[in-house]
């Protein structure tokens, strides 16, 4: 039986791997052990769990690796299901001498400066960027001289839009850096105005076996309310084959420097003019929010395809994703609009009164404490509509009607 060492907890990914008959040893970090709610049924299907202090602590990971070597536990591959486990997963694969993300690959994906340089080396267009020095005045000068305003400031090793902002002036940058110093070091990049997409691709032996392109309802940087148009519309290949060809060409170019082999990627890019794409970033994991769920009405959650290739299934036996010619799909995150303790969530009956909701995954439950950011947990839905305009109208309708009640001030 194939045994995978899985870094961090993501229940859908883990369930998909288990459903393919794979044996799993799952590593959590201490934060997860203390804060996550683990599905006991899923835990029961896992061979073993190991808790490490942190996925960044080499000394702790080396002890895990030595322990596994000492026991003679056979690990066939190390896989990562969450961005924060990536450096650690690559380290473990290397220490154990088994397949998994490579150290170079993990650093190129985690460090946005390395990522952009690697993409540029493959001839892929990127936004101009600069790393900011620790000194505030030097940082502002660097941003002005090298990128200009407006620009986007973000941590060099961040995730999603956490600690990320559009900055319009030198004084705004000073103020923002002062308020976010705990996420340093930072980089700035050219502000790209245009439509933003995410592309999810399943790879087998360095070739794409499934790809989907979705257009965000609003560029991620513009989301100031996690409940409003916080989702993306699936672009049907039959309606925009040119976009798919461009996305595939970009991925083929990235495959070399990022060493894509068998697994899944989640990339983002901007369309600055028709047919003109600018690479934003790429991750070596399943897309978050509803990026995978959106394919459930098409035949399978994309994590099921990923799990199938990880289990070595041949291409012809992979689940098939199909589009209905008279239907467009979008994923949509519905979320509390203020930080605090959740006291009420939409009921099943309320959700059922909207027949265009095709899939629901509840993320927040009563009693949870929530913070406010673009990935604030509420619930992920997949909705259908006749066209993109109708999907937007329906997204706003749901934002207004399927609401979460929160007692403000209960969460940090």
């Amino acid at each position, binding site marked *: 039986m194939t045994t995978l060492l899985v870094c961090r907890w993501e229940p859908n990914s883990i369930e998909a791997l288990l459903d393919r008959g794979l044996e799993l040893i799952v590593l959590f970090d201490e934060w997860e052990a203390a804060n996550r709610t683990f599905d006991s049924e899923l835990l029961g299907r896992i061979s073993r769990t190991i808790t490490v202090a942190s996925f960044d602590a*080499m000394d702790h990971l080396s*002890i895990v690796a030595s*322990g596994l070597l000492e026991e003679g536990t056979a690990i066939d591959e190390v896989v990562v299901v969450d961005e924060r486990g990536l450096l650690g997963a690559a380290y473990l694969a290397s*220490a154990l001498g088994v397949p998994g993300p490579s150290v170079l690959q993990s650093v190129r994906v*985690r460090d946005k400066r390395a990522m952009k340089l690697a993409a540029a080396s493959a001839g892929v267009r990127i936004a101009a960027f600069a790393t*900011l020095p620790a000194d505030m005045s030097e940082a502002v000068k660097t941003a002005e001289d090298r990128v200009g305003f407006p620009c986007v400031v973000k941590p060099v090793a961040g995730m999603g839009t956490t600690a990320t902002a559009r900055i319009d002036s030198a004084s705004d940058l000073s103020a923002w850096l002062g308020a976010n110093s705990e996420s340093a070091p930072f980089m700035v990049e050219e502000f790209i105005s245009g439509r933003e997409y995410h592309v999810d691709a399943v790879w087998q032996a360095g070739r794409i076996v499934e790809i989907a392109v979705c257009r965000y309802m609003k560029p991620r940087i513009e989301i100031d309310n996690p409940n409003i148009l916080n989702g993306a519309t699936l672009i049907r290949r039959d309606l925009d084959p040119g976009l798919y060809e461009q996305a595939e060409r970009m991925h083929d170019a990235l495959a070399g420097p990022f060493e894509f082999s068998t697994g899944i990627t989640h990339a983002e890019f901007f369309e600055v003019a028709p047919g003109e794409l600018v690479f934003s970033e790429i991750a070596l994991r399943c897309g978050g929010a509803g990026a995978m769920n959106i394919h459930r009405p098409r035949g399978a959650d994309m994590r099921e395809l990923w799990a199938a290739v990880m289990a070595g299934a041949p291409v012809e036996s992979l689940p098939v994703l199909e589009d209905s010619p008279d239907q467009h799909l979008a994923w949509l995150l519905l979320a509390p609009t203020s930080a605090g303790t959740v006291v009420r969530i939409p009921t099943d009956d309320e959700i059922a009164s909207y027949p265009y909701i095709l899939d629901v995954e509840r993320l927040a439950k009563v009693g949870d404490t929530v913070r406010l950011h673009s990935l604030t947990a509420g619930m992920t839905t997949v909705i259908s509509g006749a066209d993109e305009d109708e999907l937007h109208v329906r997204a706003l309708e749901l934002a207004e009607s399927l609401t979460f009640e929160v007692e403000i001030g209960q969460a940090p």
Partner: protein
Amino acid sequence: MGGTFSTDPVVPRHDEVERDQSDTTSGGRPHVVLCRWDRLILEAALATETAEITVIIDEWEHANRQIDPQLVGRLRALKVIRDFDDMSAMSELGVQLQNAVPPVTRVISLAEQSQLGAAYLARVIGTAGPSIETSVLVRNKIAMKRRVTAAGLRCAAQVSLESGSRQDVEDAGRRLGWPLVIKPAEGMGTVDTWAVAHIDDLPDSIEETAKTHALIAEEFVSGDEYHVDAVWTAGEPADFGVSLYVVPRIEIDTPGRNNGSLHLREEDFPEVYEELVSFGREVNSALGITDGITHSEFFRTGDGEWIFSEIATRPAGGAICNVFGAFGDDLRVRWMKSELGRREDIARSRPDRPIIGWVNLAPATTGVIAQTPDPAVLARHPFVRQVIPGHQVGDVVGTLHPSIWSWMAVIEADDETQFIERMRILEIEAAFEIIPESEFTS
């Protein structure tokens, strides 16, 4: 899809000094990264004048070590990172160094604390250096011995102790036999190492230590303990020295007594050399070690069997490397010359006395040092080749274990008996005055 390309002269997290990237005065020389601060090694590396040198130190070193600004001025860069085991910090640094000018050609770890970080950094930069797999194997005694045993080489049998509890140790004793050696799975020297003759002699401190460190129990091997210090190039020993510890390390109960070793001349012990070169090659091969410095330990039983104990890919502690200075360059200097393209300049001569060795001269109690040995008194003996000062007045000696290195001397002798006599003289003459810390603070 072609378009703009941004190069980014990445700004480091914390640079003490970095020469301007536009300074291309390297003259095509290689660029070597040294992890941790070691003045002697750094001076040796700079003296080769063959490479640009970047040094990485951690925040502890930055706060506690005397970093000589004159030496720093001769470096390509001095970079400070939070901790060598912090993968985020090391990956950030690696990204900077991927674009270093001139390109980094090798990463070398100078100390135990930087072994894992140096291997990771080399991989991130994509340059020569220790492999991650090897760095893990040499740091963890359990994994190391499993790998060496799997290669068919004789090691002391061992088991890991889950909790360090009495039951745990008793089970290990039943399996391995008494006495047992108990030590951390990841440790250096004989820090936190116990020889336990019987379960009734189990010290309480073992269970306490097990709360924070993974412990192993090991078969007690009776016999002589040797150490081998070598510099390897492409799997072959460029320098190779065998020494005999005065007593096995586990039998040292105070750091200033019987704490030393005698270097054996190859001409006097050709068979020992031949056997250990062969054994050393096989150990290295099992662990993936091909280049660099190693310090390994072996036991020889009464019936002449060699048993592998452990290996480290760093210079030895004590004055082991200094002993080589009695017949050419210090081993650390040989290592740097070997790594940095000056192999032909390595000074080597025949040891002019049968025995040259070293001895550790350390306080016998904990406390604050009020008086140190007089170096002139120690050096007046013609048999003393070198006196290496250690603890100074005001230093606090908090714990006593065999790897507390204090004052040391390199001495010569005609035979082992004479060496022991001379060692004893120095141990007596190396007078420390210690004030108990409680008395000092009150």
